[in-house]
């Protein structure tokens, strides 16, 4: 019917002669195949090295674990009081840790920002210390503080405090570096001293950003605070590990589900607050 429907070998030869580079796909295909071969070889090799075969042999045990997690027994003996106290303790740890971290960051942020800290040496020292606070994972801080001050929520609060302080200081200092200089000049022009310049020139501009970021960190600290208990740093994680070690897997499932609901609720509330009072600016 249409001339296009018949394609002879000659047509291919003609097209190849006209545009040889279009038909030159061999090199590209080899590179493509090689990349995928390397990726797949790596995956198979690493999984073999990590002994993936254990999943096959452990299936029986895994199955018993899974069924124990989802068949809930003896619900009346679960001590709900201690579960919800621990969840409340987790929230309290996150709240205190983030609050203390934010207060500390309010001062350290000014020390680490180029706009407010004219001495490069001090700035660099402060920033490197912050790097250490951030570089060590919160759970590691938890473990360290458990060794230092003993089991319990105090270690958890300190761990959240240290890692939130590290990250919030950095974010605060970045916010300070991104502000509108004109407003600061305006305050300075009235003859205000350095403290007053900070208070009236900088704070009003950055405070909404600070609050928004702190709220966001409260949210993420609630998430991370749930696992701090795994190393003994208080909160619901301690309940989880305790009951896991005692093979109460159904209770573990219940606690984890409760934590999930709680975390989603906090996320939602914090999102609403940020939308309502801070507007769409920086998270």
């Amino acid at each position: 019917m249409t001339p296009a429907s018949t394609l002879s070998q000659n047509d291919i030869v003609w097209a190849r002669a006209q545009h040889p580079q279009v038909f030159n796909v061999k090199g590209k295909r080899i590179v493509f195949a090689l990349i995928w071969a390397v990726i797949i070889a790596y995956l198979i090799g690493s999984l073999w090295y990590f002994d993936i075969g254990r999943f096959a042999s452990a299936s029986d045990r895994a199955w018993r674990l899974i069924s124990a997690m989802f068949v809930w027994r003896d619900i009346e003996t679960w001590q709900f009081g201690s579960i919800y106290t621990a969840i409340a303790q987790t929230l309290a740890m996150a709240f205190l840790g983030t609050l203390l971290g934010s207060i500390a960051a309010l001062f350290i942020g000014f020390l680490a920002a180029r706009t407010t800290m004219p001495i490069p040496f001090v700035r660099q020292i402060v920033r490197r210390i912050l790097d250490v606070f951030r570089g060590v994972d919160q759970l590691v801080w938890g473990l360290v503080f458990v060794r230092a001050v003993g089991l319990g929520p105090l270690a958890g609060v300190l761990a959240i405090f240290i890692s939130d302080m590290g990250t919030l200081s950095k974010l605060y200092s970045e916010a300070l570096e991104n502000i509108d200089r004109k407003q600061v000049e305006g305050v300075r022009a009235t003859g205000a001293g350095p403290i007053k310049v900070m208070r009236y020139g900088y704070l009003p501009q950055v405070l909404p950003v600070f609050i928004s970021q702190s709220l966001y960190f409260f949210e993420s600290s609630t998430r991370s605070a749930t696992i701090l208990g795994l190393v003994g740093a208080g909160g619901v994680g301690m309940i989880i590990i305790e009951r896991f070690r005692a093979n109460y897997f159904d209770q573990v499932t219940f606690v984890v589900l409760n934590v999930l609901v709680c975390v989603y609720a906090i996320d939602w509330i914090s999102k609403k607050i940020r939308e309502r009072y801070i507007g769409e600016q920086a998270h």
Partner: protein
Amino acid sequence: MLKLDRLTKSFKNRNAVNAISLDIPEGQMVGIIGRSGAGKSTLLRMLNRLAEPTGGSIIIDGRDITALKGRDLLAWRATCAMVFQQFNLVGRLDVITNVMTGRLYHHNFLASMLQLFTDEDRARAIRALDRLGMAHTALQQADTLSGGQMQRVAIARALVQEPRFLLADEPIASLDPLNAKIVMDALRTINQDDGITVICNLHTLDTARAYCDRIIGLADGNLVFDGAPEALTEAKAREIYGAESAEAFSEGLTSTTLDFPIPAAAMAAAQPEYAMGLAR
């Protein structure tokens, strides 16, 4: 013969296309005209089932297109190529691959997932691009092309589908007059040389008059005109384009090159792409 029988598309409280019945013999070049919102686009999109009809049927070779499912539906779409106002190319792929996607229906799953096209596909694509004068751009990334070039690539993609029908939904509404002419000439050539039935939504009357064998006028989803271009009187055209155009209606003003008499602002609001097209 493509037969539309009381084809209807209704939204909540109104019919975008209202019981349209048509017979389109193969090999015709049909222009569908009407104001924006008249249901042209919906009608065209129902023909290759990008939009689902809510009533009526489309019959070809004794088969009801509206009832097709699965592989049969894909086969129909492959036979019934479409060209869009915004070209709908994959901007991040090169031109030749864009054209070769027209062959996807004929590929097996693995070959299409791995982008393994054959030399035959390449030859077809080159030939189609060559017909449209675009073969030299074969290895360029598609989003580096101008609008007119993209539309020609899109037509090349339609050509390698080896379609029986070619639907063009406002193919020139986003193009400048020169490119609009190139694209319309290409569609006409395809219609005449390859015998492909071309059904083309057009915004402007003189384009339809210049290129089409037959003009179909839609107003508010209803068929208000169906006949040869010569039979379309000024009075009829006025009816199609609605009351707003009445006072200043003049054939010359509906040309591709000029904006539509009165409702241009209204149209720009309703259809931002139209405004962009005007601004070029």
